[in-house]
């Protein structure tokens, strides 16, 4: 979806292929609507001024409304306007889509599963061992290595960061500022929509991002800098081994 890999695992014996298909269909719809890489998506047409927001779909309006709210909550650090013009709401759409995908499975009565798009994950219930889902945090400087393992049940986890030099996240309040001091920020929250939007904003704050998350009740974070030093919020350790 939007060029990102999808993973869905269902533990419940009632789980069926059809359930997974339903979620994938939903993700395909999200892709068609919100992918800035699709020429004919609704967001692309909006960005070319072929469409006014007032005439856009309810889902598009909802995403813009949630983006406004997130921008306020993060003092402007979450901002879907691109420096080159137009909008890119993927920092919010991704988490929202995973969350809604998980809701589809819940509506079908499923309780033990996870839904993932490119490293952002919504967990529900327990894994195949009957334990909280074990989620590894990737080493930002070595993609084949895991540097932390957390145990999540009914939580969302999202990681913002840079692997490629030339960060794809910029500081909306200072577009020229290179964000290469912090290379990875992982946020655990009550669901992946919240974790994703705040991880996106917090990463744009640089070193202050960890303090922002520390100030949000119910959220924990793990920040890794370019020197391989990690900083975590006080409650994060409770999730780790």
């Amino acid at each position: 979806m939007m060029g990102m890999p999808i993973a869905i695992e269902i533990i419940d014996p009632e789980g069926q292929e059809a359930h997974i298909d339903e979620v994938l269909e939903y993700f395909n719809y999200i892709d068609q609507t919100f992918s800035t890489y699709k020429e004919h998506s609704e967001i692309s047409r909006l960005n070319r001024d072929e469409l006014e927001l007032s005439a856009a779909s309810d889902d598009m309006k909802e995403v813009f409304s949630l983006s406004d709210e997130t921008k306020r909550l993060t003092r402007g650090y979450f901002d879907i306007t691109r420096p080159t013009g137009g909008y890119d709401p993927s920092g919010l759409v991704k988490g929202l889509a995973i969350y809604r995908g998980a809701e589809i499975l819940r509506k079908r009565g499923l309780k033990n599963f996870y839904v993932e798009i490119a490293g952002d994950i919504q967990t529900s219930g327990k894994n195949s061992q009957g334990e909280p889902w074990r989620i590894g945090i990737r080493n930002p400087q070595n993609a084949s290595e895991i540097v932390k393992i957390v145990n999540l049940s009914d939580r969302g986890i999202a990681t913002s960061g840079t692997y490629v030099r030339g960060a794809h996240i910029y500081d909306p309040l200072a577009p020229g500022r290179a964000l290469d001091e912090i290379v990875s920020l992982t946020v655990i929250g009550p669901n992946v929509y919240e974790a994703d939007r705040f991880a996106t904003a917090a990463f744009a704050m640089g070193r202050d991002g960890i303090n922002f998350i520390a100030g949000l009740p119910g959220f924990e974070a793990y920040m890794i800098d370019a020197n391989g030093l990690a900083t975590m919020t006080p409650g994060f350790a409770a999730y780790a081994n």
Partner: protein
Amino acid sequence: MRKTFSILLIATFIAYAGFLKLNDKPVDAIPIAVVGKTLQTADKVDVALNNLTSSSSATVPQGPPPTDVGAPSTAAQPAADPFPNLQAQGKARIVNNSDSPIELIKTTRLVARDGKMFRLGANVTVPAGGQTMAYIYADQNGSAYAIGPSRFSLPGLSDAMQTIVYAVSDKAMAMAKPIAAPAKTVATAASAPTKPTPVSAPPVPPPAPAIAPKPKGRYKDGTYSGDSVDAYYGNVQVAAVIANGKIADVKILDYPQDRRTSQYINSQALPILVAEAVSAQNGNVDAVSGASETSPAFVRSLDSALAQAKN
């Protein structure tokens, strides 16, 4: 014998229950006294940043619980001032209920109800019927001046004016490095120079440097103020008290007090971040969270390659 035994049992139970209650708190929470009381020390300190080594409960004296405001920790003698060389500083609203604007100069005196004197940190103009926020600092050093929210009178004004022009602080003062010696000559408000400087210049200077790291965890005895750090929701400043070469206590000098953060303060206390070196973990995982490897440039490049690859 039996009586003694049951008393011992009860005492043990109470001690155990007390221990359980203490441990309900997160290990690294530092209870912050409600605004209006003087800052209290932590029951238990766990600090892992900025060269301060983690302290175990064995080395940290148990301070009084936050409800015991003013209770000395040792009954025999009054507690020594932990900050004899620091100055209480904070903000106050100057209220002007008269019908003309009032100009007050830097060092204008403000007196709290208990007689403690403070001074304005900068020139201030207060509009008629309005209020202006101003920085104030204690006339003398020491933590006796770390008073909670207070009302101040301005003794430099006439008695009549004093009833309608006064100052109010909504938050406790915080201890910091002194900014100015008490003024030797103080002009009255009437002879103030014409142009007041804006209040926005904070009088708090760069504080004392953070603790210098010592080899093998040894420190020099004394009290050291850390940097005042912008913690997003406000400034945070702590001081470390070193005794016998070890961390004996950590005092909170300043903490986020903005109205917006009241929920955060009530629910979580001052967050203490924990640092560690990243290291590879072995073990099975169900899934991996990492930054998306698909940066926009990457995707565009891939799309164009795929476009060429299409039949």
